[in-house]
């Protein structure tokens, strides 16, 4: 039974430069702001940043790990409010994702997702709608 207020198990992922390179290759998104400090600086960014789509992909794992069938995901949207800066070292950056059921109506549950890197929220209005069976 899915109820309003239910908290989904949280997930912490680490992004290192090599993860960005791997994601660039797999997704075909070779925007240099995801691998070149020089090009990131030229655009006024604090450093090389993770692909928004990589952060978005990790965030929804909190939901898809929780529902038994990914086909039950009906809608998913985020705003990329703060860049996730990925340092050029072995440690990388940790991003922690958590989620809570906000609404349950007509066989659907609306879930709010929170993504935090360091002290900062990096996604805004991150929300998934799933079918409730």
């Amino acid at each position: 039974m899915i109820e309003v207020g239910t908290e989904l198990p949280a997930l912490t992922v680490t992004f290192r430069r090599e993860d960005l390179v791997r994601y660039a290759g797999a997704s075909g998104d070779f925007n240099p702001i995801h691998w070149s400090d020089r090009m990131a600086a030229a655009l006024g960014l604090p450093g090389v940043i993770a692909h928004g789509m990589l952060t978005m992909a990790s965030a929804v794992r909190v939901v898809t790990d929780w529902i038994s069938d990914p086909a039950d995901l009906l809608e998913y949207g985020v705003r990329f409010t703060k860049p996730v800066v990925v340092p050029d070292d072995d440690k990388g950056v940790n991003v922690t994702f958590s989620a809570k059921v906000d609404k349950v109506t007509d066989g659907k549950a609306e879930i709010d997702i929170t993504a935090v890197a360091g002290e900062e929220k990096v996604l805004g209005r991150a929300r998934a709608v799933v079918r409730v069976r």
Partner: protein
Amino acid sequence: MTIDATMVGRSYAAAESYQVGREKIREFAAAIGDPNPAYTGADAVAPPTFAFMLGSRALEQLLNDEELGLRLDRIVHGAQKFSYTRPIKAGDDIAATATITTVRKAGDVEVIMYETALTTVDGEPIATSTSTISHNRGES
């Protein structure tokens, strides 16, 4: 060589459809570090954000429109939303059409929203992707 509200409604269809392969789904799931068993095996479906990639060839057409004069290295992704009809699976042959829905200017920055319709080549709806991108035209 600029973009303004008169360009709202312009549509860009990917020149070729996207043939989804099982290995590509596996590679993508590995790249996002997601071990969900739904993304491997004979009946594998693609992770939800895989849908963004299928629209990238339509986006390429949009970026190639010389009248808009956009440059990939000046673009930052602002927001992204998907509405799914069904998961993407290996063997799907997907067509993508991107349509500019909103253009807003703030100084050198242009905020562009575009919607991408993903269907099979036979016309079966798969998903709709709504993207907001910021393009910085300022010299630096």
